[in-house]
């Protein structure tokens, strides 16, 4: 706490990448025995600051002081020897090795005959036990563990290194509520042992649950350092996005629902289904309407979207587009019918990391035209100019490799890619997952505009509130079947949908609790 000396002090840190100043005179102080949250939108410089602290990036200006001593860190190994360990969003362990090896890798106990595996596994077990993971067998393969436990194993590893500073970079993004609680118990335990913990997360609830103080960054600049209890959520968001909540609120308050005309549906499926993915359902999608798919993780949301797009071949059912019978069995056929699908898996099925923003934007248009007729540079530029501007992709540099963009901006590029095909029906699977509040609001706003312009939009999100806010009509899925279809309006809220889901399977006492948990994340 502030009366003691900070273990880490970063002063006036600046880092420039070609064309961008990623960090501009940013400061950060970490005290022993505190959980410190690092807050900011995507692209605000959180990752860059962490990488500066862990020695991955060289700092151009400024100073890092560890326990009062100025230090120049040359890399991960260097940072680790200075007592700084990092646990990343994606678990960075080796799945081909055992739990014990992962914990001890590089620090195995050695004897006269090389590594002493018995002692090494014992030391691993001891470390795991300290974090309440005593039930794990160090000789078991890491790959057999669920992701949450792997995350905790990664933290145990930093304990072996006697770390004084633990950086948790989005550690909870793939964990469920119970697993988050388990992680937090470990984090509190470490904090009480005097470790300084830097916590980065998009989940405000979690930040308020765990952190003592927080530092806010915006656009690569230091916005302020606060005690968590002295800053409420609205103030925090305002500091992060640099404008008040009016924009967000206006979207929330929007009551004027679009009125669906009586014309025939753009897309109508009767009894479309696929064994093991989703039971036969009827889906009707109209122009100028946002239809939401609500349901828990694994309820069949993505499966249904993939059937509509033809990414998976339906076993049953008939599909009509604009009243004409259509066979949509491959994505190419869907594109030909002006149906576009933006996958939930942004990294693997969405952006092509090493291509530029321009190349990513024109990809779908080019695919539809066929490779024999490449887009001219002028046509490309037209597409790029139109969508980069409309969606507000930042930085506005079309030649920048898309991997250098923040998650929210990558999502905008993806959205632009599909819009460039001028679809009549746009399927958005989790378009706002893992992106920050500001970008989220922009994307939500844009989706609403698209529907106003006459597009049919199928909107999928695991945040039920978001589905409710965005949709004119909501299809509720549960256990791979459709259980309800609700017209949007004042009567429909996240709670009412949760009730629908919960009441559908009465007799399963856990269902209700699980639903509520997910609804509130």
């Amino acid at each position, binding site marked *: 706490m502030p009366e003691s000396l900070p273990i880490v002090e970063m002063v006036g840190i600046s880092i420039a990448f070609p064309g961008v100043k990623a960090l501009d005179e940013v400061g950060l102080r970490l005290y022993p025995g505190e959980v410190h949250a690092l807050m900011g939108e995507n692209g605000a410089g959180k990752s860059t600051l962490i990488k500066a602290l862990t020695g991955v990036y060289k700092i151009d200006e400024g100073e890092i002081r560890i326990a009062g001593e100025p230090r120049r860190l040359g890399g991960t190994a260097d940072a680790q020897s200075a007592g700084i360990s990092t646990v990343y969003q994606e678990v960075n362990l080796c*799945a081909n090795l055992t739990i014990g090896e992962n914990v001890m890798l590089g620090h195995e106990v050695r004897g006269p005959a090389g590594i002493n595996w018995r002692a090494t596994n014992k030391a691993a077990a001891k470390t795991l036990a300290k974090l309440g993971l005593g039930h794990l067998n160090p000789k078991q393969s890491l790959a057999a563990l669920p992701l949450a436990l792997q995350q905790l194993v990664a933290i145990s590893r930093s304990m072996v290194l006697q770390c004084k500073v633990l950086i948790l970079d989005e550690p909870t993004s793939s964990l469920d509520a119970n697993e988050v609680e388990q992680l937090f118990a470990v984090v509190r335990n470490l904090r009480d042992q005097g470790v300084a913990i830097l916590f980065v997360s998009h989940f405000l609830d979690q930040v308020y649950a765990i952190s003592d103080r927080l530092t806010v960054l915006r656009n690569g600049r230091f916005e302020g350092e606060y005690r968590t209890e002295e800053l409420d959520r609205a103030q925090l968001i305002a500091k992060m996005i640099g404008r008040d909540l009016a924009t967000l609120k206006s979207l929330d308050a929007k009551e004027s629902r679009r009125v669906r005309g009586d014309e025939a549906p753009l897309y109508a499926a009767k009894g479309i289904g696929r064994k093991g993915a989703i039971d036969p359902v009827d889906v009707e999608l109209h122009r100028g309407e946002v239809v939401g798919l609500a349901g828990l993780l694994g309820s069949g949301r993505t499966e249904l979207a993939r059937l509509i797009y033809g990414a998976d071949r339906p076993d049953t059912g008939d599909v009509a587009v604009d009243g004409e019978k259509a066979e949509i069995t491959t994505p190419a056929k869907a594109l030909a019918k002006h149906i576009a699908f933006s996958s939930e898996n942004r990294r693997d099925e969405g952006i092509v990391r090493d291509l530029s923003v321009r190349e990513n934007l024109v990809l779908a248009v080019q695919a539809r035209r066929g490779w024999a007729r490449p887009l001219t540079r002028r046509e490309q530029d037209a597409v790029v100019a139109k969508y980069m501007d409309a969606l507000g992709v930042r930085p506005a540099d079309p030649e920048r490799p898309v991997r250098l963009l923040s998650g929210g901006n990558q999502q905008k590029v993806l959205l632009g890619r599909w819009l460039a095909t001028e679809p009549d029906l746009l399927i958005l699977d989790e378009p706002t997952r893992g992106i920050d509040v500001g970008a989220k609001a922009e994307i939500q706003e844009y989706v609403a505009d698209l529907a106003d312009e006459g597009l049919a939009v199928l909107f999928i999100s695991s945040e039920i509130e978001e589905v409710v806010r965005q949709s004119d009509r909501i299809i509720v899925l549960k256990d791979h079947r459709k259980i309800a279809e609700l017209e949007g309006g004042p009567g429909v809220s996240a709670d009412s949908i949760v009730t629908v889901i919960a009441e559908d399977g009465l007799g399963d006492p856990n269902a209700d609790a699980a639903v509520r948990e997910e609804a509130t994340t």
Partner: protein
Amino acid sequence: MSTLTQAPAEPTGVRALAKRLSLHLDTLPTAAAVVIFIGMIVYGEAAYGRIVQFNTLSNLLINNAHLIILTVGLTFVILTGGIDLSVGAVIAFSSVAGVMLMNAGWNPWIAMLVMVLIGTAFGAASGILIQYFHVQPFIATLAMMFLGRGLASILSTVPERLADDSPVRELGTQIKVYDGPKVNDIAITPGVIIAAVVVLAAFFVLHRTRTGRTVYAIGGSEQSAQLMGLPVAATKMWVYIISGTLAGLAAVVYTARLGSAQNITGIGWELDAIAAAVIGGTLLTGGAGFVLGSVVGALVLGLMNVLITRDGSIPPEATTIITGGILLVFVLLQRAVLARRRE
């Protein structure tokens, strides 16, 4: 992994064995290689006779000592997820250069040291290209392969014979360990001893040193290994240096046995060594495999040649087809194992 040193099954029945096996799926391809090797011996003994006897098995080791050494080197590289295509050409250059140096009057022992160091130099060059110039291992070692083959051809295009009294030939001389009836002796050569030492040393390095564990970690995920603070760059350099050095050593062992060297020696041996490693259970994507498995893989290939010779009715041309078939079976087996592991 310590699994190899543990007894594979407690006497609690088939189910316990199956459970153990599923816990250690990594060892399954290697276990399969052992089973196939034993199966080949049993089949050979039943069909042709005179397989399970001292001299046949001794010769199997003597004739394949160089391949075992090569395969051990390749195992290091493949465990990191890399590949080394240069080893066959390194053998050609190293052996031609070595024999010419000895014939030119160099001290044979110094010449042998030079042969090994030629391999080290090639390995270091590949390692530098891969680690510091970010060349794909396939391309970097392919370039080294062409370089080695070309240098060997520049030196000589005819077989260079070693003097019969050269001390190098002693490395290839058979030593009778046990004098059996007629020619049925247990015999080894210093070359076999060298191969055995190499295998044991490799086993120690891979399973009992931090460098060895880093090799496995890199194969599992290079990025993770980096973020864990392991010395990834140095270790990757080391595996190519080890592979090159062992290729130089294999050149010494092979030249000692044959007594001559030629620029076309070792064509395709890199692929034999890769095949042996894969048959022995090493995953080409890295991170899984055992050096002892690679030895079994090399012996499977060697034994196959013996069986084909004994059979007589199989044309030697078919050898490569059979090698390919075995390889395919093993790769399919590995894919099945990987699919199980992902579940």
